[in-house]
């Protein structure tokens, strides 16, 4: 049956309507988790707040389990889902840049918009920065292109490259996630409490 739009269950015209609705819900959950505060995000790096890690880990886990149950019940075909293509080196370099910006600004691109929406000036400044970055990237594209296109690995997933059953991977991932939650809780208790 699914994915619904590529299989024509929902006409493609609905794409953007659905995107906006999902975007609103996504923004709401970011704000509800308190991610529009840059202190909360920076907390992961300093060890006084792991809400970001917990929320995203849980979201990934729930989505994984849900998608594979739906695949099992033939409601969605996992093989037809979009997998971002992997470019090893551009992912590493881009990741470093992104992580750097993450710590400096205390926002990820999504939370920037959230925080800007509730009127945080630093988030608005970050947004301007993002657009400057996009502009610079576009201008330098000819120069960056060799790196950008190099070491293409295709649309692979961890289960492809490790060659293990996705079901076992999900099970191990679930256990790993729960262990991580426990460990970060222990760390948080040891670090001096920060009030914000």
């Amino acid at each position, binding site marked *: 049956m699914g*994915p619904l*739009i*590529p*299989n024509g269950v929902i006409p493609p015209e609905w794409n953007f309507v659905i995107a906006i609705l999902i975007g609103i819900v996504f923004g709401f959950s970011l704000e509800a988790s308190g991610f529009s505060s840059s202190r909360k995000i920076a907390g992961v790096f300093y060890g006084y707040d792991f809400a970001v890690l917990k929320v995203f880990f849980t979201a990934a886990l729930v989505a994984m389990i849900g998608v594979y*149950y739906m695949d*099992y*019940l*033939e409601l969605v075909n996992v*093989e*037809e*889902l*979009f*997998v*971002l293509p992997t470019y090893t080196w551009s992912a590493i370099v881009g990741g470093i840049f992104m992580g750097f910006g993450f710590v400096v600004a205390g926002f990820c691109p*999504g939370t920037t918009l959230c925080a800007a929406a509730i009127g945080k000036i630093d988030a608005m400044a970050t947004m301007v920065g993002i657009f400057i970055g996009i502009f610079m990237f576009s201008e330098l594209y000819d120069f960056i292109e060799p790196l950008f296109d190099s070491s293409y690995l295709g649309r692979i997933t961890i289960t492809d490259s490790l060659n293990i059953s996705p079901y076992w991977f999900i099970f191990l991932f679930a256990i790993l996630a729960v262990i991580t939650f426990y460990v970060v809780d222990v760390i948080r208790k040891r670090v001096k409490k920060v009030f914000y």
Partner: protein
Amino acid sequence: MKELEKTNRISFSAVIIILVVLIGVLSFQKPNNVFKKDKNLTLKPIINRDFLIKIKDLDSARAKQMAFIDVRNGFEYSKGHLKNAKNIYTADLLESENKQYISDLEENEKTIVLYGSNPAEASGAWMLLTQMGYKNIKLLCAKIQYIDNKFSLGEFTIEKPIYDYAAFMKKATSGKTAAKKVIKKKVIKLTKKKKKVAEGGC
């Protein structure tokens, strides 16, 4: 007290998740008919051309191991058919009794020979069964003809050109070369369609 009200929501949603999964799993029915993933399952015999049974093979020793299935409709079948042939119209192939019949034959290690009024008619049925993983399915390479209203098999060669096209065209165009219009070869640039996917990312 406020903390406790939140609890209700959490346990409520947890119960709902469990219920949804349970109902889904319990009400799920496995698909009856399944195409195998291996794309070459049908292509290989086509390339090797070993999916065809010639008329002369029918008299050989192998013939004892053959079971015939007539894939024409019941009306055609009643007009005349091979001895020992069972009539399963192509459209009815997936009915459970017919599938049972075919898998029984497969278990008895029979070679299942499909035939229609010509090989092309039976090739759809052949491809369906082969792709579903049945082994030893063959196609009878013969056309059915009625001589004096009597059923008989005629030789049939698939993909036999009735003209030598190149020679024919040369002869036909000779002396009037101006008529031949050379159309510039269309250069078609096609990008491989990405697998239909729902894109997105964060």
